[in-house]
């Protein structure tokens, strides 16, 4: 059983109304600890099919073509509710991946990162575990409308776990990272040091109100949590004309990453918010069909095991008037610099509510006053977006798990708990 056999099988079951996805992934991973290490070599193969049969859209996935044939038969034997088929895309993207060369082993960075973390934290934080993964994927998508897509990618990513200790108090942090260029252990060490040592101060916020300066890692996590505003029906509280402050432009643009999404729709830049006005949304084939709009190329497959779903691919803040982060700091008369989140942001998109918990630094007249172990901001998402008045020039991208990018952001008139 091969991919061609599966295409023929699907074409017989659902002429013109099918899609076949194949993926091969290979990775080398090292998990380093002070005592011992784990090395893993992984080679994964996955297949997935969607087809429209007996009035409903079906999905099957397997780790081999033979397994997929069985899964297709099983799914076809279950009667689901009536659904429309999709407007399957056509075209050709990418080229067959060249014969792969052996993957290199992940770089050995445990000792270097541990040293930098110790220096950043003045000896208070220690690196507990560092996972580094080098990976490569090759994907193919074909469908009953002559789509032929061949995508390939590689990445260097991982997770670092550190523990800060002061007296009897301890604080643990787990930070995921992805490096598109050379490994940046210095930035990773700074993030780990802040996240593990600031909460040890046990000092609450000295202010109840003030300005809030969001570190790029915090503003990225917040943007990732708000991504649902751009992928589903717009909640009733949203005012399109006054969605955010005029300083805010939000874009999704993965054109530099891959030529098409996980369904074979061409990748394009989508301006979601322009100077505070909500202008667009993200669609995959299914949501585009429901909304009767063209798909935007945001059918994302985190794994071959699941059907594609609408998700951002490379979502980020953009601004024409970015200023250096130091200037933003100088503009804080009295407030907090949110250096790292201590819990995932909590948002209720329908109810227009958000809550973030963070550790950071108290700031008065642009100068750091001392650590803040934990503070909480909560309120209306609409107000938060309208109070983001200035954006820094230090935009950075974080795997959340899709890439989300944000700079330092200044938020006016915030309440702290």
């Amino acid at each position, binding site marked *: *059983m091969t991919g061609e056999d599966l295409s023929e099988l699907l074409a017989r079951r659902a002429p013109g109304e099918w899609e076949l996805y194949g993926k091969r992934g290979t990775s080398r991973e090292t998990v380093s*600890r002070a*005592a*011992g*290490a*784990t*090395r*893993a*070599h*992984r*080679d*994964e*193969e*996955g297949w997935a099919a969607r087809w429209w049969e007996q009035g*409903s*859209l*079906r*999905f*099957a*996935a*397997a*780790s*081999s073509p*033979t*397994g*997929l044939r*069985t*899964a*297709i*038969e*099983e*799914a076809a*034997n*279950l*009667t*689901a*509710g009536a*659904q429309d088929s999709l407007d399957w895309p056509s075209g050709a993207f990418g080229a067959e991946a060249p014969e792969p060369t052996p993957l290199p082993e992940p770089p050995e960075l445990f000792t270097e990162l541990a040293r930098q973390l110790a220096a950043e934290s003045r000896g208070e934080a220690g690196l507990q575990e560092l996972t580094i993964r080098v990976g490569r994927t090759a994907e193919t998508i074909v469908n009953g409308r002559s789509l032929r897509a061949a995508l390939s990618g590689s990445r260097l990513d991982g*997770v670092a776990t550190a*523990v800060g*200790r002061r007296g009897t*108090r*301890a*604080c*643990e942090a787990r930070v995921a990272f992805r490096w598109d260029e050379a490994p940046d252990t210095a930035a990773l060490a700074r993030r780990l040091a802040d996240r593990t040592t600031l909460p040890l101060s046990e000092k609450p916020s000295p202010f109840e109100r003030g300005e809030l300066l969001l570190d790029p890692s915090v503003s990225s996590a917040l943007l990732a949590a708000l991504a649902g505003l751009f992928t589903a029906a717009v909640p009733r509280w949203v005012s399109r004309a006054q969605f955010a402050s005029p300083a805010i432009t939000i874009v999704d643009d993965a054109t530099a990453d891959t030529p098409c999404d996980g369904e074979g729709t061409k990748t394009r830049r989508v301006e979601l918010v322009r100077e505070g006005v909500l202008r667009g949304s993200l669609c995959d084939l299914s949501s585009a069909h429901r909304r009767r709009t063209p798909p935007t190329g945001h059918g994302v497959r985190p794994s071959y*095991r*699941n*059907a594609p779903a609408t998700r951002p691919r490379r979502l980020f803040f953009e601004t024409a008037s970015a200023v250096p982060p130091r200037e933003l700091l100088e503009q804080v008369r009295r407030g907090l610099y949110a250096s790292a989140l201590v*819990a995932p942001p*909590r948002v209720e998109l329908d109810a227009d509510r958000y*809550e973030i918990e963070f550790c950071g630094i108290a700031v008065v007249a642009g100068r750091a006053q001392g650590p803040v172990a934990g503070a909480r901001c909560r309120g209306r998402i609409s107000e938060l977006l309208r109070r983001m008045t200035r954006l820094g020039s230090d935009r950075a991208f974080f795997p959340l798990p899709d890439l989300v990018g944000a700079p330092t952001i200044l938020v006016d008139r915030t309440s702290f708990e």
Partner: protein
Amino acid sequence: MQEMPLDTASIARWLEPLARTPDETADLFSESRRETVLAIENGALAEVATRRERALAARWCAEGRQTLVASSGGGDAEAREAVRRLRAALGRSPLPMRPGGLDEEPEDEGSTAAPRWARRLPGLIARAAPRHRLTATIAESRREIVPARGAPASFTRRLFSLEGTIVAASRAGDEPRAFAFHAPESEQITEELKRALSAAAEPRERPIPCGDGEIDVVLAEGCAVVFLHEALAHPLEAGAVSPLSALADARVAVSELEVKDDPTRLDLFGGYEQDDEGSTPRAVRLLDGGRVAGRLTDRAHAGPRSSGHGRRGGAFDAPAPRGSNLVVAPGHASADEIARRLDNGLWIEQLTAASVELSSGQFRLRFPRARRVRRGRLADECGPGLLAGEILPALAAIEAGVGREVQPYRGLGWCARDGVVVPVGGAAPDLLLRRLRVRSLA
């Protein structure tokens, strides 16, 4: 499910040179997994998805070092290739083996459980809660472990999960409520599932905010397993550094409290007949008379004395010591007695999420709703909220007078740690805890 055609004798022979000393472990793990996912909306089957996966991994470990070679596929040829690559990664001499292509995956008969649930579930759910959006997952996993030394082991687990939202009536109108039910798949769970759905859809008052501050709580209807999974099972996993690490035999809770982690309870979601390293599991007492009594171990931490808690999310994950079913022994108190002793506080029957930070011992438990107890009587509904505390003070705050009725908690199903997800479960009586921090999420 079709037997996997592994030549276990040959595989053991290939692995044997990698485990020459008692400290060394070498094995081959293979999994064949079949899953059907049914999306059910308002009494109708809206979408179906099926999955078939086979994968295997060859592993060597000794003295804190571990090497894993994992790949898709599950036949003899893939197993041979995995062992060959493991030996190459360890710098050992190659295997004298015949060349050959990869095995064609055997075909097997289809699942019988999935079509049965697909026919039955929409109506069964609709009778309890006509409006709902739920996802049922019927999974069957066959795992086989071939160690370098000793007998190979294999076992099959069938699991059923139903999760999502139901719309229930409340005095202030319709109210969406989260629902989760996880149990080993069998005919016998149908009645229990009906009862769970009916209870979840009961008309109730619309909850009001529960306020912030310190409060006494009763964890009822078995949901105490979620708290103890975070406060005992994770901290007592071998290799974990936690506030309990240096407290072997120390009394940390009331002497009435007996807690064990029991993978042999196959009626609970986290049970198994063999762990993922081929060890026969045994129940481990975590608290014995309120004292820290044991740790959950795997082969990497305890060699052949492993307690049988070496678990993997799948072939692509290395095994690690993990909890399974948290089981608390019954006490003697009735629910009425416990409510009277609580006097004023919160009566919580559902915990939907939990986390623990092991180094500091801080944990968080999220509840969607609770009942206020005033002067020993159940009063108004409140929630959602967050309970927080630290492991040692919270264990010490469990009051004597543990409930006498042990109930399985089907809301607990999957535990993720370091990205590795394993099924877990448990059963517990009502527990009264004094002065936990509560924060309203309303």
